[in-house]
C-alpha cells in the first residue's frame, strides 16, 4: 500500500491545498498510471482532532489519515497516532518542544514520533542527534522528502544508512500538485492511525518516489 506520509492542507499556515483538492489530484495521478492509496495529513504544530475526512476518503477511494509535524528544539518531527494523552502532555504550538521527551512519551502512549527531513539544514535531526539527549529509541526517520532541496535528502539518507534506520517517504506537499511525489510502500493494508503506528513499528516498508508506483 502506497501512502504519502507527510502532507499539509490549508490547516497548516503555509499550505494552499485543501484535502479534497489533494484527493482529486490523486485521481489525475491514477489516470497517469500511478498507484497512490493513502495520505497522512501532518499539519504544522497542531492536530485537527475534530476533522473527519471519511466521506471524502470514500468518495475518492483514498485513505486519509491524520498526524502532525511538530517543531522541536531538535528539529522537526512527524507524529503519528496522535491521541488525547499526547495532546495533553505537549503544547503542539511550542516550537521549542523537547523531542527526546516527545519520542519517548509517544511510544509509551501508543503513538510514534520520527524525525522529519533529517538532512534539512537547521531543522533536521542530523544536526541534533549527537547533541546530548537520548535518542537511542529512534529507529525510523523520514528518508525521502519531496520538499527537500538538493543535498538535503542525501544528507539524511547518509545518517539513516549509517545508523541502520528504517526510512519513510512523504511529499511534504503544501500545494496540490506536490502530493504523493514521495510515498511509503507498506507491505500491509493500513486503514486507520493505529494500524499506521503498528506498521511503522514493524519496519516492513520502504520509501519510494511516485515514478516507482507505475502500475
Amino acid at each position: 500500500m502506497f501512502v504519502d506520509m507527510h502532507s499539509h492542507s490549508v490547516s497548516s499556515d503555509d499550505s494552499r491545498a485543501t484535502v479534497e483538492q489533494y484527493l482529486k489530484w490523486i485521481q489525475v495521478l491514477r489516470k497517469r498510471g500511478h498507484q497512490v492509496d493513502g495520505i497522512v495529513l501532518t499539519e504544522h504544530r497542531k492536530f485537527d482532532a475534530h476533522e473527519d475526512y471519511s466521506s471524502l476518503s470514500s468518495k475518492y477511494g483514498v485513505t486519509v489519515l491524520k498526524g502532525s509535524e511538530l517543531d522541536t528544539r531538535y528539529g522537526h518531527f512527524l507524529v503519528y497516532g496522535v491521541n488525547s494523552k499526547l495532546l495533553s502532555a505537549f503544547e503542539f504550538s511550542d516550537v521549542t518542544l523537547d523531542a527526546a521527551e516527545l519520542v519517548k512519551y509517544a511510544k509509551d502512549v501508543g503513538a510514534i514520533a520520527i524525525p522529519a527531513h533529517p538532512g534539512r539544514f537547521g531543522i533536521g535531526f542530523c544536526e541534533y542527534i549527537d547533541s546530548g539527549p537520548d535518542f537511542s529509541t529512534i529507529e525510523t526517520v523520514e528518508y525521502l522528502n519531496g520538499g527537500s532541496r538538493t543535498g538535503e535528502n542525501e544528507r539524511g539518507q547518509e545518517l539513516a544508512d549509517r545508523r541502520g534506520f528504517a526510512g519513510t517517504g512523504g511529499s511534504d506537499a503544501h500545494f496540490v500538485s506536490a502530493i504523493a511525489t514521495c510515498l511509503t510502500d507498506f507491505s500491509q493494508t493500513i486503514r486507520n492511525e493505529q494500524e499506521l503506528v503498528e506498521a511503522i513499528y514493524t519496519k516492513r516498508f520502504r520509501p519510494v518516489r511516485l515514478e516507482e508506483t507505475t502500475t
Partner: protein
Amino acid sequence: MTAQDVNFDRSQLGVGYPGGTFVVDKDDLLRYCKATGESDPLCNDEEAAKAAGHPALLAPPTYCANFVRSLGRPDIKLNFGRIGFHAGESIDIHAPIYAGDTLTATTGLKDVYTKTGRSGTMVFVVWETSFSNQDGQKVADVQESHVRRE
C-alpha cells in the same frame, strides 16, 4: 516558544486603520510594465485598452501591491529578530484597476505567529489591506506576510 511568548502590541490585532489614498498614475503604470516586461497591450496602449471596452489603461493584476509599502500602519512594537523579509502575498481581485483611479486603503494586523525553519526560529506578521476605488467599489484585498528572523 509559542506565539504567546512573542512580544508585540497585541492591542493592534484586528484593528483597522486608514492606510492612505493612492492615485494610479498612467506614467507609473507604463514604467511598471517596462520594468516587469508586461507586454499586454491593454496595459501599455491606451487606444487598445479603450478599443477593448476599458475606460483607460488597465493596471496589471498585482499592481496595487506596489502601494502596500506606503501604507500608514501603526508600529506593533515587535521585539524579535534582527532581519525581516517578505514571506508571502495574496491578492483577491474584485474589479479592474485603471490609470487615473484613486484608491483608498484600509489596513490592519491580522496575525502574529511563530515557526522554525532552515534559518531558525521565525516570527510571522500578517497584515490585511482592502483597496477601494473612487466610486467606493472594492477592487482588491491584499494579505501580506512578513517574517522576522533571529
